[in-house]
């Protein structure tokens, strides 16, 4: 009787553990699939793509996670076969640094040019004396403001 009860409890515990573990694996599988690029339909992740190769890749991710491999090992598995391109977010390396830094560099250059132009323009205006007509107009505007 006690032995049977023990078996039942052990079973229940095992089932409960499997139920907890499965969603965890599924979440990891989904996360990894979203990080990998489908090399056939190149602007989709493995998670989004309907290509047969993407389905194969999802299956391999699942099998490897069930075998106890880490996320890093799964990513490395695909990188060895398909190259760094398989990362949906490209890693920072010799062939991609321009891609990563380029937009910020161009924005910085644009900002620097803008500042230089503005500064030069302000300097020009600071030294330009007003004509008598401009001075008269400014005086009128200021008078209007002080006596409404």
């Amino acid at each position, binding site marked *: 009787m006690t032995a049977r009860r023990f078996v039942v409890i052990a079973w229940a515990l095992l089932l409960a553990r499997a139920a907890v573990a499965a969603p965890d694996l599924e979440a990891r599988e989904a996360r990894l699939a979203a990080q990998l690029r489908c*090399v*056939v339909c*190149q602007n989709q992740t493995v998670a989004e793509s309907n290509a*047969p*190769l993407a389905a*194969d*890749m999802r299956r*391999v991710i699942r099998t490897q996670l069930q075998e106890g491999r880490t996320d890093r090992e799964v990513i490395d598995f695909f*990188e*060895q*076969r*398909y*190259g760094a*391109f398989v990362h949906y977010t490209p890693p920072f390396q010799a062939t991609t640094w321009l891609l990563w830094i380029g937009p910020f560099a161009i924005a910085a250059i644009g900002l620097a040019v803008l500042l230089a132009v503005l500064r030069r323009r302000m300097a020009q205006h600071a030294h330009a004396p007003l004509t008598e007509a401009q001075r008269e107009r400014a005086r009128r505007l200021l008078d209007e403001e002080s006596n409404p």
Partner: protein
Amino acid sequence: MRFLVPLAAFLGLAVVLMLGLQRDPRALPSALIDRPLPVIDGPLLQDPGRRFDGAQLRGQVWLLNVWASWCGPCQEELPALNVLAARDRVPLYGLNYKDQRAPALALLARFGNPYLHSAVDADGRIGMDLGVQGVPETFVIDAAGRVRYRHLGPVNNEVWESKLMPVVKALR
């Protein structure tokens, strides 16, 4: 003069982007170049009792062509492969990728079999080890068993002469 600098910058960018459009985004370099060919452990298509043995091919330069009967371009390249591999005496082996035995054999019966042997990769696992993106693909393997070149897409006379044979000849 004021507008020359932005105009020059615009034209420069336009030229760079135009050149970018000419490039084929699918033409990715294989991650396997200069690395050992992965183990191709599959049964032979014509003789399922035996398995493909890549180690036996050490010492010669050979081609591995990934093909399937369901792939149109694979059918197109078969006649060319039949003629060219025999003419230039290049050992050509096949990897029958995610295919079924009957249609694969039927295709070879219809167009002729250019392969010394074809290994069967029914579930695509070997193809994944090779980094196969889409069939057909052709790999050049050197005498030490390393991958030296990969061609994506069907092989025709022009591809054979201008891409595959120069690599093979340089390795021989």
